[in-house]
């Protein structure tokens, strides 16, 4: 693993981004971000606020008084009053961002008095744009919910991570088939739904970016860290279910199920066989996706990923063998690898996807992977289909452009420097 020294330019987003899916999942929630106009600009740009009549997220924009050290509670009180009057949320997520962190402003400390005053649960969380991958915003939101979980000694099962109804249904059905307790999901449909946690709880994370929440549950509720690879692809799903069963003292084999699943995926995996795929750093999904693509027959020589937590990711890293893993890579270090490897497919986020396509690479935009239901056996078709479809499209279009002698040259800056002047 390469150290992250000498990073000059990074290509990832702000951890406010998960508000986009979390406020949809928890329909009775409101997300109040304490930050700058830039936080607000990110939310409206990234989450397309204009499509919502009454968005259930907003920014308390810090002014010069706040920067000068005013008590944040005084500023937040009327804002929370307005939100409660307008939206009547059952819970408010009060998010501290970069600027309050720099100012050492005690945003979290405002949560208890606001909760007491307005009678609405207030979860303090930290969603900043420093080092966290954008998906880790979900991690910090879930951590704040776990802090309010009832304690229990029961042997219960909690699946950690925001999932679609389809993904939850598969896990529910498989747990019933294995004779495990009915799983609780965190987050659920309500922001007040926080399952009880304790030393006998099996708390399994469905996403690879929920280390802080899992570690917090371990520290504060004694939940053992669940050690498995993550349920992406038939290989990951099999291991995930078998590990769940083992945590309840059962031995279950999903070997035949995995074989069946791979067989059903043949048309999506065949185009990936022996193709070279490189992951640029984005959502922290890179390690498990590289693992299952390799299992499907692709070559993945290099994986960039924003943050690695050694214990939490140990099982995934163990599967990756000689794959070069670049933690929080510099943009140009990755570009040098791409130039040398000339991969068939590059997985990259929106910051660099079009420029990479302009450089001649076939690009799968990675942000989509966060929004699609790709978990489990039932999501594998969607997962591999996205990669296969991108490759097919790229190859088909390139062949037709070559046939017709029409290169489809990318837009460069010269395109804008026109105006019929003497140049």
């Amino acid at each position, binding site marked *: 693993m390469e150290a992250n020294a000498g990073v000059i330019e990074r290509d990832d987003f702000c951890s406010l981004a998960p508000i986009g899916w979390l406020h949809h999942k928890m329909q009775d929630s409101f997300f109040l971000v304490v930050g700058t106009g*830039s936080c607000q600009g990110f939310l409206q740009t990234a989450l397309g606020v204009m499509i919502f009549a009454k968005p259930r997220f907003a920014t308390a924009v810090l002014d010069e008084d706040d920067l000068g050290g005013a008590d944040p509670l005084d500023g937040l009180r009327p804002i929370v009053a307005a939100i409660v009057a307008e939206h009547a949320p059952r819970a408010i997520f009060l998010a501290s961002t970069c600027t309050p962190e720099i100012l050492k402003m005690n945003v979290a400390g405002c949560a208890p008095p606001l909760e007491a005053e307005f009678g609405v649960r207030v979860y303090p969380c930290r969603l900043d744009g*420093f080092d966290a991958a954008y998906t880790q915003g979900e991690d910090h939101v879930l951590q704040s919910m776990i802090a309010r979980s009832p304690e229990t000694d029961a042997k219960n099962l909690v699946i950690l991570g925001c999932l679609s109804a389809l993904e939850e249904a598969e896990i529910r059905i498989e747990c019933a088939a294995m004779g495990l307790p009915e799983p609780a999901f965190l987050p659920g449909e309500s922001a007040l739904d926080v399952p009880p946690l304790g030393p006998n709880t099996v708390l399994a994370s469905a996403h690879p970016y929920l280390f802080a929440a899992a570690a917090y549950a371990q520290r504060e509720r004694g939940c053992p860290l669940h050690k498995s690879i993550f349920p992406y692809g038939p290989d990951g799903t099999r291991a995930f279910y078998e590990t769940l069963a083992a945590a309840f003292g059962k031995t279950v084999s999903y070997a035949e199920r995995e074989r069946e699943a791979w067989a059903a995926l043949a048309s999506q995996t065949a185009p990936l066989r022996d193709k070279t795929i490189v992951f640029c750093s984005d959502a922290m999904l890179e390690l498990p996706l590289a693992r299952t693509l390799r299992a499907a027959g692709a070559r993945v020589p290099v994986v960039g990923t924003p943050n690695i937590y050694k214990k939490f990711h140990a099982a995934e890293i163990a599967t990756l063998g000689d794959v070069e893993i670049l933690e929080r890579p510099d943009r140009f270090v990755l570009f040098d690898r791409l130039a040398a490897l000339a991969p068939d497919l590059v997985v990259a986020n929106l910051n660099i996807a079009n420029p990479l396509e302009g450089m001649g690479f076939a690009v799968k935009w990675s942000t989509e992977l966060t929004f699609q239901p790709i978990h489990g056996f039932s999501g594998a078709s969607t997962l591999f289909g996205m990669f296969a479809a991108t490759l097919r499209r790229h190859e088909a279009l390139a062949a037709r452009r070559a046939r017709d002698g029409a290169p489809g040259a990318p837009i460069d800056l010269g395109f804008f420097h026109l*105006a019929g002047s003497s140049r």
Partner: protein
Amino acid sequence: MKLALWSYQAPAHVGVSKAAASFGKLHCVVRAPKGDGYTTIMLAMFERLGVLPPLSFCAMSEATLAGAAADLPAMLREIDARESPEMIVVTRSATALVLQEPLDGEVAMMRPGDVKAEIFMASTHPVRDNELSAFARTTREIVEHYAADTPRTERPSVNIIGPSLLGFHDRANVESLRKSFDALGIEINAVLPLGATPDDLRTIGRAWVNVPTAHELAKPTLDYLRERFGTPYVNELPYGEAGTTRFLRELCALCEIPAERIAVAARDAKLLWYSRTVDAHALSSKRVGVFGLPTAAAGIARVLRDELDMEVEFVGTYALDYGDWLRERVRDITENVIVTDDYREVARAIDRTRPDIVFGSQMERHSASGFGVPCAVVSPPSHILNYPLGYAPFIGYDGANHIGDLVNQTQVLGLEHHLIETFGPRGQGRFAEAAPEPAAERGDARVPVAAGDVATDDVRWDAAAERLLGRVPFFVRKKARANVEKYARERNIAVVDEAVMLRAREHVGG
């Protein structure tokens, strides 16, 4: 603290970025947390750049909080080596301002010759400036930095001031003006910031006249160039056919050339004729509201009133500093001038006046649709739809034609609405019954999806599976239902439950 749900303007560092990155051979560096870096995504996505944009974020990290110095020099060296810009403009976001890092000091301590590019610290204030003021001021600062004494060009020439990357239809606007200037024999000395290089800026004083495309973006630069070189600028706004003619007449006078050739430039202009045609007669009874950037709002309001004879209910802008400017410009059109940066206040004005058409930004399009009022988008804030592949200018004669098309398209919809209101939806239903639905549109699970596939009612769904299907996004739900039923039929499964549905997803996707 102030509650913000949505803003018309981005923060100051975005204004600096748009201006600085638009100049040719310049690169912009923003000191900020990586979370502030979404301007590069907008550049890459909206402008569909197939190259890295000349904009970089020097990311603050947890290490910065712990006292580590900015690695600004390393980033400057990297950009210098890769891009060889003539200048690197450095600014910071509000978050970086709070940290009060001595960025100037870091740059000052770099060895002479360490980077070939000149390093320029933008003077805008990350909190007190806004997107527009930061854009306008940065453009002026960079012009001021390079401008040198130079003789006037022999033939009449202009600088076009205002267009930029992430601007509103700016490339097309420049092209539209260029066509008219070509017809008049007026040279373009420079377009800025869009594409103007330091060499262009050194000879910026050669132009006879300056032409702003948006006063709120160009004003400080216009003032500077008038003070420094005595260069006049055109006051008329090039919106509409008559407006463009007035604008060109003023320009011709300043260029000391005969105005007769304007007719050549105007030969493809059709807006005023369209307005005389019977199609457009109904426009006199139509009431409109206009809201956006001040120049666009003033220009569009005048076209609608003077050239199409529509009734203007209100005009407004979110550029608070330009309220008086706008009032003065539309004094003879309406007294109802709304100056606000709260989109809800504009929505209330739409609700109160219920105009037939709103001309506004993407936010007004959204607000107006809530009241069932059509909206033509004529100003930023933009949407990817405002970055069309084709040619869609808003200014000059071609822009006038485009505005006419927008009005026309919006009105056709309005008339259809009117017919439906008069005759009720029954009229629609009859047509729908009479005309065979295109097969591709149906996509219903009961319809055979392929030859040999028999439509049957043999597959039932249990309640849980129906609920789960309801959770599938609506736009793929029909396909998902068809896929699941096909899967079930092939395996003689009579009842679809959740497990069957998930198995089907696994095998056939969807």
